[in-house]
Every structure is written in structure tokens, then in C-alpha cells.
């Protein structure tokens, strides 16, 4: 019963941590645009948090730069289990337009495991909200997607 309660709480109020791993800012402002009253993802209980230790979902943007690789790993390790990772944007999914640049490591999934990808350059706020809801639905169905 207690497990069910925890899962219910997790699905009804996922706290997210936004992390920029070297993106151009386009995806980051679209994530914030999903939080404003027009879409208001807060009605699904999504709250933006400041520290990885409070977060359930890590929302990453951008190709992982060489400088951010270690930091991304560290932030991921600081998050409590179970943790979920959502990648927003094309360059976070695969390196996108920055493929082949000397400062770029590649997609987020080259560094940490990823649960959901939201493609687009940048994805629209409604696509980001949709991606988050799909992730929540799959958590609700059971375990990791």
C-alpha cells in the first residue's frame, strides 16, 4: 500500500530539475514557456526545483559539451532513485546540428541513460508538455518506461 502511495505521489507531482548541458538556450526558453499560464504544466503537479536532490525528473537540453560531461554525471548521481531523464531538443537527442564539433561529446544518452526524447529544434512548448505527460503515463503503468 505504501508503495502505491509513493507512486501516486510521484505521478501526481513530479519535481523537475532543468539542466542546460551546452544548448543554445532555445529549448530552455521553450521549457519555461511551458510553465507559464498558457500551457501551465504546473496543473499536472510539475514543479521546477533548484537542486538535484529534490528532483524526480531531470530535464536536459543541448549536446553535452566536454566541460559539462562530468557535471552532468555528478548531477545525475545526486538525484534520488528512482530517477527519470527527459531530453528536450534535437541536439540533446543526437548531437543534432553540432555533430562533429570539437567541443561536443554527443547526445545526452552518451553520458547518462535517458527515458524520453522530445525532438525538435526547439520543440514547441506543447510538445514538451506532451512529452512530460507521456512520461508520467508510462511511470503510472509501472516502473521505468
Amino acid at each position: 500500500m505504501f508503495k502505491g502511495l509513493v507512486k501516486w505521489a510521484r505521478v501526481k507531482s513530479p519535481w523537475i530539475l532543468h539542466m542546460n548541458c551546452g544548448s543554445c538556450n532555445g529549448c530552455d526558453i521553450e521549457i519555461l514557456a511551458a510553465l507559464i499560464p498558457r500551457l501551465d504544466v504546473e496543473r499536472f503537479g510539475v514543479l521546477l526545483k533548484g537542486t538535484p536532490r529534490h528532483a524526480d525528473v531531470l530535464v536536459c537540453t543541448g549536446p553535452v559539451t566536454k566541460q559539462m560531461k562530468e557535471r552532468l554525471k555528478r548531477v545525475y548521481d545526486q538525484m534520488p532513485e528512482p530517477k527519470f531523464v527527459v531530453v528536450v531538443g534535437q541536439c540533446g537527442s543526437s548531437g543534432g546540428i553540432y555533430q562533429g564539433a570539437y567541443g561536443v561529446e554527443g547526445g545526452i544518452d552518451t553520458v547518462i541513460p535517458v527515458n524520453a526524447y522530445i525532438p525538435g529544434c526547439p520543440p514547441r512548448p506543447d510538445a514538451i508538455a506532451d512529452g512530460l505527460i507521456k512520461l508520467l503515463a508510462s511511470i503510472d503503468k509501472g516502473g521505468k518506461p
Partner: protein
Amino acid sequence: MGRVKLPIGPQHPALKEPENFTITLDGERVVDVDIRIGYTHRGIEKLMESRTYTQNLYLVERICGICSYAHVENFTQNVEEILGIQIPKRAEYIRTLFLELERLHSHFLWLGVAGHEIGFDTLFMYTWQDREVVQDLLEMISGNRVNYAMNAIGGVRRDVSVEHQKKVLQGMDYLEKRAEYYKEVAINEKTILARAENVGILKTKDALKFSAVGPTARASGITVDIRKDDPYASYLDTPFDVITTNTNDVLGRVVVRVLEIFESIKIIRYLMAHLPVGEIVTKAPRKVPEGESISHTEAPRGEDFHYLRSNGTEKPERYKVRTPTLANLPALAEMLKGTYLADVPIIVAAIDPCMGCMDRVLLLKGNEKPGELVDGERLRRYSIKWFAERGWKA
């Protein structure tokens, strides 16, 4: 109590982007600031040398997601200058329209972020809601919300129809009403005054010394605006004023940006009323002859500077970008000295930092010895020795 070193970043709730500020504190006072940049360095300049000019149009746009259009405008201006192409008048006007729409959305965005940093989240929600009006206009004309893909070398890719013009003017009427409200809020609201007045002082002489640009410089009483100083696109025809204040503090930077919203609305109204008829694009060859060119535009954050050297092929030989945030960082370090720790986020936000577009350097931390400064005479002697060792005569 001794001095304390406090690292802020790269991952920190007060910073939206990964950057590191190491702040030396004496009690609550900031004594010294060490800014370490390079966390979002991707190597775009080098990457551009391996892509064609058409591909680079899209890459340049993704230097920064907020002032993306200013970068594309610079790039196309550079290429057009070397090619010797004169773009159609209508294309110039449409480009100016986009530059101003971008300034509008960026200033609304900044106002919200500044509100967020001082714990005034209501303002954040308000301004971002209004920013959606600008985003809708951008999407209506170009089809995209953030990276518009509007420019082609030799003009623009999409036309502005009569219906678009009507909608743009409607949007401007709404935004002007909202901006009036924000002007009231910025000047009279106690929450903002308490946090912004006499905070983050940058004196005029310091702003000149550290070559501040854009709204940061204009809030310190320096009349600098590339749109007026070196007009590009259709700014020569367009009447507008350069806004300056001389309060030198964060409040001044708020006021400058709010008043610039009105100027942008004025410019857009003028452009819509005087939009010339004709072509929107001239044909440009794929290969660019040998040459060099520089271009600078007034991005929402200040002067954005681009340099291009071409070598007669389809790809550029060298491309260099200097973005306004980088120019404002030395001034930022000066502003932070002597302030309270609690004011650091709003002061950093007040220059409207865009780290994504700023990171043009990569710092590699290794075991190598720190570099040393070598003067000309020592360098000369070293070269003579170097050649002599190899049996050559200098």
C-alpha cells in the same frame, strides 16, 4: 572572520545556464569575483569552416536561441558584402521587422527573468504571457517560434502579406498597452525599487573603461546604439530614439529596456506603414570570392560582432563571433564588487547574460604548467637561439 570563497555554478538555481562565478566574500559583502566561462563551448566557429554557406545559415542561427536572428543577420550581411549583392528594399524592411520583433520578445523575456530573480514571480508570469503574443506573430510569418530560418543569402525566404501586417499592428496595440503597465510597475512598484535601486552600480567612466555595450552601457548614460551609429538593414530610414538613463543601477537597466519596448513598437508601426513593394530575394551564387568582411548589429543585449574571411570556395575560411554578453562580463565583475551576496543573481541577470552564445573559448584544465608572459625582446632572443640550435642563421 576570514574571507570565504563561494562557488556559484555551473549548476545553480540562480543561473539558467552553466557558468561558474567564484565569489570571495567578506561577511555578506562581495570582495572579488572570478568568472569562469566555457561550459557551453561547442566549437561553432571551427565547425562553420567545414560547412557550406547555406548550411552555415542554420548553424549560425543556433549560436543563441534568444537573439538568433541578430546572428543570422550578421552572417548574411557579411556574405552579401563580399558577394557585392544589394538586397531588395522589401527584404531589408522585413529583416528589420524581425530584428525588432526579436528585441520585443527578448526584452519581455528579460523583464520576466529579472522579476523571477528578485522573487517577483507574478511579473515573470505576466511578461511571459505577453511575450507569447510576439511569439505568435513570429510563428505566423516565419513558421517558427525560436529559430526563424527567415534569412537567405540575398534576401528573406518568406514574405509578409497584408493580413500579416494587420495582425502585427493589432499585436503592437496590445503590447503597447501592456508595456504602459510595466512602465508603471517598474517605476512605482516598491518590490522592484527595493531590490533594484542603487544596486549593481556601474559608473559612466567604468562602463567606458570596460567597454560595456547595449542596454548595460545605455543605463550608465552612454549613448551607444549600432542602429544609430552605423545603420544597417533599414534603420537609416526609420525614425526612433536611443534610450539612455544615468542612474547607473539595475533600475536604470530595467527602465532602459522597458522604454526600448516602446521604441521597437514605434519602429514596427513605421515599417508596416512604409513596407515597399517588390522582390524579397535576389539570386546569390554558391561560391563566395576571396575577401574579408565585418558586420555588427545591435542585438537585444548589445553589439553583436561578426567577422568572415572567405577563400573563393563554398565554405568560409575563418569565422569569428563576439557576442554582447562577452563584452559585458568585465563590466559585470566591476558591478558585483562591494555588493551584498543576495544581490548577485539580479545583478548578473541585469546584463541579460546569454552564456550559450558567449562561450567562444575553451579552457582545458590539465597538468601543464601555467603560461608565462613573454615580452618582445625575450621572444626575439628565444627565436635566435631556436634557429641557432638548428644550425640556421637568423
